[in-house]
């Protein structure tokens, strides 16, 4: 029932996230034989020396710095009841961002770090924060900073519900949408290294390790679901609901593509 609920028709026995990851890594290694973790994390900056130089200059005094500082302040400010976010999160929230999203066996669903933060707020009598902009993104920036350099570690436990969520995320990733019939893979697998309009296309492996990211276009730090939404809107598709099951499952699958790469967030992108 749950499998059908989230639109997955594959039986749990057919789903093998480890075999998938092996195949995906083999593909990108063949496409980019000289790339190591640093190159995959660099993404689009591999393909344009001028933009790379600009990025290097920006990273000397990164614009997400203020968001990180403010995020630390917000994270450490007690709720009205005197408790803090640290009380809700593993390791007090420090050095855990690289392992999100996680599968939550209690709810049977994928849980993003944004959801953890808002759940913590609700438990402590506070209103949830907006998902794509504002204070939540600053807290995410701070938490990401505490995970910098740690290998991305998204696990899919041997639980039919987790496997179904992973498979649903995979379906979302490879689903064509919009009037031009684009799916994520069209740009970030086959066309990685090429351009669409003025933008160089990053390979899928390494993308998620840079989020949450400060984007010049946003003038702010934003989570990866904000990027998913913007990208889908760019190709004319109505995106699934941010923070909903489909988007969370997509993030679960997509972030796992970067497993093993050092967390590189927050970062700066155009």
């Amino acid at each position, binding site marked *: 029932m749950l499998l059908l609920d989230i*639109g997955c028709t594959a039986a749990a026995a057919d789903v093998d996230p480890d075999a998938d990851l092996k*195949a*995906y890594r083999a*593909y990108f290694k063949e496409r980019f034989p000289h790339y190591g973790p640093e190159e995959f994390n660099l993404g689009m900056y591999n393909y344009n020396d001028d933009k790379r130089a600009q990025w290097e200059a920006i990273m000397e005094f990164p614009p997400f710095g203020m968001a990180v500082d403010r995020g630390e302040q917000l994270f450490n400010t007690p709720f009205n009841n005197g408790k803090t976010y640290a009380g809700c999160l593993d390791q007090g929230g420090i050095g855990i961002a690289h392992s999100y999203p996680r599968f939550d066996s209690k709810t049977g669903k994928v849980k993003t770090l944004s959801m953890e933060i808002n759940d913590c707020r609700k438990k402590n009598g506070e209103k949830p924060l907006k998902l794509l902009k504002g204070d939540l993104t600053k807290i995410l920036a701070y938490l990401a900073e505490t995970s910098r350099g740690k290998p991305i570690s998204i696990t899919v436990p041997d639980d039919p519900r987790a496997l179904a969520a992973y498979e649903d995320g*995979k*379906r979302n990733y*490879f*689903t*064509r*949408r*919009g*009037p031009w*019939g684009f799916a994520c*893979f069209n740009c970030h*697998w*086959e066309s990685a290294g090429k351009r669409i309009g003025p933008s160089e296309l990053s390979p899928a492996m390494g993308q998620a390790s840079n989020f949450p990211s400060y984007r010049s276009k946003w003038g702010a730090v934003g989570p990866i679901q904000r990027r998913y939404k913007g990208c889908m*809107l760019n190709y*004319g*598709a*109505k995106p*699934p609901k941010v923070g909903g099951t*489909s988007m969370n499952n997509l993030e679960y699958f997509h972030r796992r593509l970067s497993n093993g790469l050092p967390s590189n967030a927050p970062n700066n992108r155009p």
Partner: protein
Amino acid sequence: MASGNLEMKTVLFFLVILSMFASTGCSLLTGDVRQTEENSGLTGKAAEQTREEARQSLEAAMAAQNRADSLEGGWISTDKLINKAKAALARGDHALALKLAKKAKVEAELAYKQAKHERDHWLPPPYAR
């Protein structure tokens, strides 16, 4: 006396000009519905039929879009067409509303077909299996 007559004539002249502008302005500002229906050549029962046809087409387009959305497959362009059709209907441009609504319905049906096909037949490309 002569100057008084000239003044009177001048005032009357400007009053006539003003009243001409007033009536034109009124019809431009408030007479859009009448103007559009008069321009379409439809009046009375025919106009009512066109309005009803446009309204029903718009409802059908919105239902089709909801169907595409139910599979998370709706297109942005369809929402824009529907909003333009609603605006056209509201201001009485029923012919345009009908045209836009029909186009929106076609798009929404295509979007639904796309989403349904993807749900039933999605597969990673060969190099990703």
